């Protein structure tokens, strides 16, 4: 069975640009969450989507947005990139909304220059 897949694996962007990151959850999983992991720190919660609706949002600015599609895949968008947005962006899928046991993808390494 395929695990959580994220694309691209690496990305370099310039300050002020916009970026879209993609995630496909494990088959049958309806909940997708996004986390940001800055070097040397643990992941920080950005969004949770369940059944195509946003169910929660972490302490991130409005430059961060996301959506979930009918096939439960998800996109994370970040506008007006800042140097501080450089991080590993992790997608986690869960079977249903009521569990926090998360299965993570390998992440997208975003570098903003």
């Amino acid at each position, binding site marked *: 069975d395929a695990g*959580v897949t994220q694309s691209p694996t690496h990305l370099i962007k310039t300050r002020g640009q916009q970026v879209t990151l993609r995630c496909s959850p494990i088959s049958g999983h309806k*909940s997708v*969450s996004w*986390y940001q992991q800055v070097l*040397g*720190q*643990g*992941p*920080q*919660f950005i969004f*949770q989507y369940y059944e195509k609706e946003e*169910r*929660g*949002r*972490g*302490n991130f600015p409005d430059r961060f947005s996301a959506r979930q599609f009918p096939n439960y895949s998800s996109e994370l968008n970040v506008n007006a990139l800042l140097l501080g947005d450089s991080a590993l962006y*992790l997608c*986690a899928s*869960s079977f249903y*909304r*009521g*569990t*926090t*046991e*998360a*299965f*993570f*993808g*390998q*992440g997208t*390494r975003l570098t903003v220059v």
Partner: protein
Amino acid sequence: TQLLEQSPQFLSIQEGENLTVYCNSSSVFSSLQWYRQEPGEGPVLLVTVVTGGEVKKLKRLTFQFGDARKDSSLHITAAQPGDTGLYLCAGDDSSGSARQLTFGSGTQLTVLP
């Protein structure tokens, strides 16, 4: 916002030694999870503890949840080089409508052959 503190931040030991990693919070969590993360990869779930005082074993790894569900520990017996990685604890922080994880900053373990 609930916070998790992990200690030590870095740990370098020789193969065959024992070690304990601690995860502490002033808040109560309904459950707590331990993950291991290797460079360039997403975190991999090791265990979930739910009941205060619960002890779970995974081969040479022993996980304990504090009686008050505010702290946890991970003990590794006879560490091997394959145990090298970033160990993260994460608490179930579902105060809102989202099921989100609050992560500690991690313990970077290096086991030398």
